[in-house]
């Protein structure tokens, strides 16, 4: 991987990466810092990128995830940090949780947006709108088994896309 490739990746994924970082950190300035730091880390460790192990995109998102967590921890540990978890956990652990939730939420929403229409459709109806499969099947004019099958492949697709976006189970 060279600078041109990384620069192209910045143009292609930079917006989404800022979206992820903003969602996780809740601060636009910090989100921009996270993306800059991510690309800096990527450049420094470019010799470790192996396209046979995964796409450049998933590698970058994995680095960003780590970077965002580091920034959140650093912020939480600063004197005067306002985090004050009620359950007695330390502020760094609490910051990790917030960031993990933000990352997971962003990855899942992005993955849902990329589903094929017929997969997203049944997922939204059956999961988000809590409609019985039979009712969704009637509305779509397909057998109930088809709805269930689409749900199965929707979940499979979500897993693949989320891994592309750096999801670490």
């Amino acid at each position, binding site marked *: 991987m060279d600078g041109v490739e990384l620069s192209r990746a910045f*143009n*292609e*994924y*930079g*917006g*989404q990466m*800022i*979206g992820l970082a*903003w*969602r996780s950190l*809740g601060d*636009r300035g910090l*989100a921009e810092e996270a993306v800059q730091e991510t690309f800096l880390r990527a450049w420094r460790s470019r010799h470790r990128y192996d396209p046979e192990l995964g796409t450049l995109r998933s590698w970058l998102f994995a680095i960003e995830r780590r970077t965002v967590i580091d920034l959140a921890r650093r912020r939480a540990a600063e004197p005067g940090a306002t985090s004050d978890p009620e359950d007695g956990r330390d502020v760094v652990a609490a910051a990790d*949780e917030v960031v*993990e*939730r*933000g990352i*997971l*939420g962003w*990855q*899942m*929403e*992005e993955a*849902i*947006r*990329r589903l*094929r*229409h017929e997969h*997203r*459709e049944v997922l*939204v*109806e*059956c*999961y*988000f*709108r*809590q*409609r019985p*499969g039979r*009712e*969704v099947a009637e*509305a*779509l004019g397909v*057998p*109930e*088994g088809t709805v*269930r*099958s689409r*749900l*199965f492949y*929707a*979940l*499979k697709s*979500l*897993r693949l896309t*989320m891994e592309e976006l750096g*999801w*670490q*189970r």
Partner: protein
Amino acid sequence: MAAMTPESHDHWRGLIALAALDALDPADRPSLDAHLASCPSCADDAAELQVVGAALAFADLDAVVVEQEPLPTPVPAVRAARRRRRRVVAVALGAVAAVGAALGLAVSLPGGSRAVPTRLLALHGSPGVVAEARLRGEPWGTSIEIVARGQTPGQMLTVSMGTAGGRWWSAGSYRSALGTTHVTLACAVRVSLIASVRVSDASGQLVLASTAPGWPPSTDPPR
């Protein structure tokens, strides 16, 4: 169900998906458990999808549902869905924690407030394609709602938003539908900085493009 062969793979996959979404009929649980105990392949699928199903609870309902018109329904289900979803979040947290992410109970993330500044851009493409993009300022950046008619269905298309300085930011991708496609995507750049929008196909070929007339705007018009 009657037309389905109980032993078929599809049958079990359907039940596995429902279980992952916490929507399995309790009457089907014993037979599914028995099958999973004897079928390693399905057991692997079940374990894999259970984690995905649990993670679904972290997606923002509005961010996802706003893109899809509800199918005709005899019962208003959204309020019940929200109540049930709160329960699912608790279950999800347990499941996700089990695979390494020790998370808390409530999802309280930034966002959710609606935009004030809005801009409408016409998108130009091949003859017969009519499209427009509505840009909306959000606290975190810009959401872009695209309505396009006449596109070749099934294409995977990528939407980018460009600043006046010539920098392009990816807002996401979508698959074109037969007839009218309606999608909402987003990027973190402020709406006031967006000068143009473009949509490219999988090979990078430009299929829709716009420029914002009157750029730069003196003020963003109120919504």
